[in-house]
């Protein structure tokens, strides 16, 4: 564990902004896709 | 001989026909009947090999038309809804090209005779765009007088024709059948030919 403190971890050696947006956006896209599919699934089942 | 076996046909999600059977023998004419949207044109397109069916088979002399496409095409004249006429070519050029594309030797004298028969001889050098609907139909039908093939598939051939042209086409159909040709067509009225040669087939579930 070479980060020492949470602040250091979040700062990512000064590249925090780029790193966290990359990972955050990836997760957000995948979760959003799952959420959208869930909704589409419910729609495709309903009112037959 | 043409056979249609256990045909199922869909347009989009809707079922047009299922387990449809039919056979057509030399010297026989089938008149397809049915209301709008029952799949008359779809059936003709499948039989001519332009569309594919969901299931079932179309056999020409007991061979699936999908496996012997070119052989089948050379036995067939299909005339669809649209007259297949290029506006920018003259009447004579249109007829010449359509024959040449089907590998028919073009004899200019016979061509002019055929145009005479369908009443377009005087317009032979005019661009096709000046023709009326009825004249266009006559021009596309002119092939029937020039190209000897056993099977005719005609989609509404009587459309836009006047009384005289109607009679002309019926006479040609009679001749074709007597010389043991086959024909399948759609039409709003029953063609006035020898009843022994005519079979009515109704579509619609």
């Amino acid at each position, binding site marked *: 564990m070479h980060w020492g403190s949470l602040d250091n971890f979040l700062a*990512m050696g000064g*590249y925090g902004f780029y790193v966290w947006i*990359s990972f955050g*956006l990836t997760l957000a896209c995948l979760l959003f*896709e799952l959420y959208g599919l869930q909704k589409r699934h419910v729609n495709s*089942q309903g009112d037959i | 001989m043409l056979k249609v076996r256990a045909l199922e046909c869909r347009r989009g*999600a*809707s079922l047009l026909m299922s387990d449809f059977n039919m056979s057509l023998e030399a010297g026989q004419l089938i008149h397809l009947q049915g209301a709008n949207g029952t799949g008359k044109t779809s059936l003709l397109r499948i039989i001519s090999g332009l569309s594919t069916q969901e299931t079932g088979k179309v056999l020409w002399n007991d061979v699936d038309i999908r496996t012997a496409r070119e052989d089948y095409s050379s036995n067939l004249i299909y005339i669809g809804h649209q007259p297949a006429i290029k506006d920018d070519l003259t009447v004579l050029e249109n007829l010449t090209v359509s024959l040449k594309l089907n590998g028919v030797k073009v004899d200019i004298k016979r061509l002019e005779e055929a145009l005479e028969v369908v009443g377009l001889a005087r317009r032979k050098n005019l661009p096709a765009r000046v023709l009326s609907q009825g004249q266009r139909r006559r021009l596309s039908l002119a092939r029937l007088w020039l190209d000897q093939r056993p099977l005719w598939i005609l989609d509404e051939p009587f459309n836009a024709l006047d009384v005289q042209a109607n009679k002309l086409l019926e006479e040609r159909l009679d001749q074709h059948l007597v010389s043991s040709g086959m024909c399948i067509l759609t039409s709003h009225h029953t063609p006035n030919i020898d009843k022994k040669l005519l079979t009515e087939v109704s579509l619609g579930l």
Partner: protein
Amino acid sequence: MNWYKFSSPKTFYPVAGSLAPYFLGVAGALLILGLYIAFFLAPTDFQQGEAYRIIFVHVPAAWMSMFVYLIMAGWSVVGLSLNSKLSYMMAQALAPTGAIFTFLALVTGSLWGKPMWGAWWVWDARLTSELILLFLYVGYMALHSALDDVRRADRATAVFALVSAVNVPIIYFSVKWWNTLHQGASVSLTQAPAMAKIMLMGMLIMSISFWMYTIGVALLRLQCIIAEREREIIWMNEAQRSE
């Protein structure tokens, strides 16, 4: 066991539904493991600092974007040669996920590029190829949605997927050639860090996680597609009966 039976959409529907959660579960577990490696086990790169950690999403996303397109083309071949509806649906179900990975590869690439190259976008060979791949995905999906007749849409997009997949290597090669001709960016995201074993490990685990995610999501989307098409047929039949 009769596998052929599963090639019918109706029988495959419940199978897809019961398999999907497992794939998604494995994807989630591997994702956590991968992220742990990415942030806590992988050392800092002496040249790029911590920014190189973007590689752990960028490279797997870029790999996935290419793989998914090839697999779509594969399903298209199966569909065209066997005329099986399920294969077409499979290709259709994969497309949006592939497009998302392409988009992510582009965005993370440019997020890495800003601190490293000093610009959000550099015409680097990999990024340019990804951009063209995104165009192909968009074209595929646009073609499918523009065609109303599902049968035609399935088969037309299959032809496009096949033709464009053959083009993907040519595009990649031509872009690389172009890059050397015009002396493009010299540092690229993947060549910079001296690949430690643990980094490769992390990237591999993230990739497998994305793989599992893709399969799970594609199965779910497949279910939606099957259900939607089924419903349309039921509607049409009702309309016909009431006439």
